[in-house]
């Protein structure tokens, strides 16, 4: 079995190195093919390992080599395939296989085709290191690795100013969070003397509560950065500057979920500090609704999906924070499938629309892009949590957790968010695929993506539909590893009311979104409104001003609020803080560089200044020591 572990881990590395050989050369189709095959090999090995674990096999644990083992610091380079990591491995390898194959088509015309595959495979390798490591040090190495690769991939089109900016923003924001995580790791190491998961977890119950809280907080700061939780979330939406397959792989299915994985991995820690867990859950719920609110008004297809990812990550943290780690992991898995599908679909649309991102400029694409339409619609249904698709099972489980644990506020927030999710998902689908076509105005002739790209997407489609059915198997798989418990609502009536109520709410939202955006006559909003003059017409057109009323008193304040969130909180507060810190550092540097005047006299004088300062201290110490008797007498005389 160890053989498969090594294959799963190193096939992506081989793929990356192989592709890297050709980075300087023109596009070579075989690079993409071989890279995809190697990633597929990793996927196949992961499947073998999954089957092994499913059949009750022992977790596989290997130690490749020892990095450091002196002076109390022991960092082995070890890997483990257990119930948790095998799930992550499946998600990572499956989605990346799909994305690799898909990219063969998507990046077809890009001159840096080979470089793309080098980065993409390097990312998969880092991600595998992250999930398979059996200690925090390995996890951190993978963690930095994915950060680096994501930087390279977001900024892949480095000629674009915005892409460069976004790449740096992501990298720097992650570095800030990583600092928190590093402190957390040091605390772990300092207090337990090890970074191995098993040993550290065994040592945690013996530590005092305050220490555990600090460890939990610092580790979570790291998780916040990678999983783009408030207030470190801005980079995720901006990261959409990267190629769309990258968004599907990194910013939907794998890297951003690393934070959730960290919390799940460290569950013995968070079990001991439920207060921190509650904070995580509350923050998760807040992010869920906060991000969803921003998705409602946005007019950029990829950003809408990105905000939706944020919102779903909020769900996962809510579940993990409440101790329902298996639910969080299950939602993570299900979400990976349908969100990647959604992104890849969006990629198809972008290709067809020549990189146009405004859904208001599309419309009626379902005739031209039938398969994409079907896939995106099903993915959206799954995202909205409609029965019997994957999202229904996982999201419903999270809601039940909130209810059973008596955190009704979190429950309510998540419930409302479910409605919002449904609305914005279908607003997007409606604007893109339904209504009348608005793209011909812009001289675009859309066409469906390559056949093989659609085929590549099909596994995700199937999983988005059926993944929910495996809930029970999944539960049994991770039951032992995560101390999983079923969350049962004892009254059947309540259960049914909840399920049906939620479904009804979601369906109503979908219906409303369709009604509002799938109709004909939607104009590309251009800011100027030409309203008819007649009062009656106006009244009818505005449906008795009820929508106006809604608009004025609900939607508009709401939109205001969303835009305030976006403009004020996001741009002003968060960005300004980050910028401010950078600016302070920078200006301190410029202000004091005058010390380096380049004049030898000044330089010599600085040396003497240093000497004089040292002498002052020396003399103070010397005199104090010499007259210590007198001094203490004097002080005693003063009554000190």
């Amino acid at each position: 079995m160890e053989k498969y572990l090594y294959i799963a881990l190193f096939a992506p590395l081989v793929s990356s190195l192989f592709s890297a050989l050709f980075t300087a050369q023109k596009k070579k189709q075989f690079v993409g093919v071989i890279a995809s095959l190697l990633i597929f090999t990793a996927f196949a090995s992961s499947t073998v390992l999954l089957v092994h674990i499913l059949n009750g096999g022992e977790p596989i644990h290997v130690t490749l080599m020892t990095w450091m083992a002196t002076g109390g610091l022991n960092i082995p380079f070890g890997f483990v395939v257990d119930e948790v990591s095998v799930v992550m491995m499946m998600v990572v390898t499956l989605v990346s296989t799909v994305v690799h194959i898909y990219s063969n088509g998507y990046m077809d015309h890009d001159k840096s085709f080979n470089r793309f595959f080098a980065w993409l495979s390097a990312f998969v390798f880092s991600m595998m290191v992250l999930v398979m490591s059996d200690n925090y040090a390995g996890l951190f190495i993978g963690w930095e690795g994915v950060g680096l690769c994501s930087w390279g991939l977001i900024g892949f089109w480095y000629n674009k100013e915005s892409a460069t900016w976004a790449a740096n923003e992501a990298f720097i924001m992650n570095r800030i969070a990583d600092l928190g995580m590093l402190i957390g790791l040091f605390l772990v190491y300092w207090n337990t003397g090890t970074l191995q998961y098993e040993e550290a977890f065994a040592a945690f119950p013996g530590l005092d509560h305050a220490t555990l809280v600090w460890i939990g907080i610092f580790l979570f700061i790291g998780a916040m950065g990678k999983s783009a939780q408030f207030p470190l979330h801005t980079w995720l939406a901006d990261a959409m500057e990267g190629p769309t397959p990258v968004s599907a792989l990194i910013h939907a299915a794998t890297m951003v979920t690393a934070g959730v994985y960290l919390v799940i991995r460290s569950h013995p820690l968070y079990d001991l500090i439920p207060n921190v867990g509650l904070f995580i859950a509350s923050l998760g719920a807040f992010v869920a609704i906060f991000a969803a609110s921003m998705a409602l008004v946005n007019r950029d297809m990829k950003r809408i999906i990105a905000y939706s990812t944020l919102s779903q990550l909020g769900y996962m943290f809510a579940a993990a924070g409440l101790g329902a780690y298996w639910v969080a992991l299950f939602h993570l898995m299900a979400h990976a499938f349908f969100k990647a599908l959604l992104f890849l679909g969006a990629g198809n649309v972008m290709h067809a629309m020549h990189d146009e991102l405004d859904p208001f400029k599309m419309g009626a694409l379902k005739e031209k892009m039938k398969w994409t339409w079907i896939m995106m619609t099903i993915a959206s249904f799954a995202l909205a949590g409609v029965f019997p698709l994957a999202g229904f099972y996982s999201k419903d489980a999270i809601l039940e957790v909130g209810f059973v644990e008596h955190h009704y506020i979190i429950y309510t927030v998540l419930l409302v968010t479910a409605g919002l999710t449904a609305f914005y998902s279908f607003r997007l689908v409606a604007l893109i695929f339904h209504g009348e076509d608005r793209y011909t105005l812009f001289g675009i002739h859309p066409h469906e993506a390559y056949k093989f790209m659609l085929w590549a997407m099909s596994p995700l489609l199937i999983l988005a539909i059926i993944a929910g059915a495996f809930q029970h198997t999944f539960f049994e798989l991770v039951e032992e590893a995560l101390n999983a418990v079923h969350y049962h609502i004892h009254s059947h009536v309540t259960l049914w009311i909840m399920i049906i109520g939620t479904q009804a709410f979601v369906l109503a939202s979908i219906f409303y979104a369709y009604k509002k955006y799938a109709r004909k006559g939607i104009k590309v909003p251009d800011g100027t409104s030409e309203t008819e003059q007649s009062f009656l017409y106006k009244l009818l057109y505005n449906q008795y001003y009820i929508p106006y009323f809604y608009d004025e008193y609900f939607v508009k304040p709401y939109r205001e609020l969303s835009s305030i969130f976006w403009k004020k909180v996001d741009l002003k507060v968060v960005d300004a803080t980050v910028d401010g810190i950078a600016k302070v550092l920078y200006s301190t540097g410029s202000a004091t560089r005058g010390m380096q005047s380049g004049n030898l006299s000044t330089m010599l004088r600085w040396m003497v200044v240093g000497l004089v300062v040292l002498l002052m201290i020396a003399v103070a110490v010397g005199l104090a020591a010499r007259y210590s008797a007198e001094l203490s007498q004097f002080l005693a005389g003063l009554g000190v």
Partner: protein
Amino acid sequence: MEIGLNHYLVLATILFGIGLYGVMRRKNLLMLFFATEILLNSVNIGFAAISHYYADLTGQMFAFFVIAIAASEVAVGLGLLIVWYKRHNSIDLDEMSVMRG
């Protein structure tokens, strides 16, 4: 009045201070080098004095090597100055600040 070790150490320190003053004040590089000679000489007085009062030869050894070092420094320093002077026709250190920041 007995002259003790401390007298010599104070003298050495005063001379060192004069040397420091010269090093910081001089703009003419040649005269700046004079000041560095004063620094080393002041230390030598100290070493000779300690050596005398402790009746130990090590101090004289150190002073001996300091003189050797001072002599070598003169050779290299003057060599550098000569090259500089050939190019700039000046040995003023204020004219020597191309690099800064």
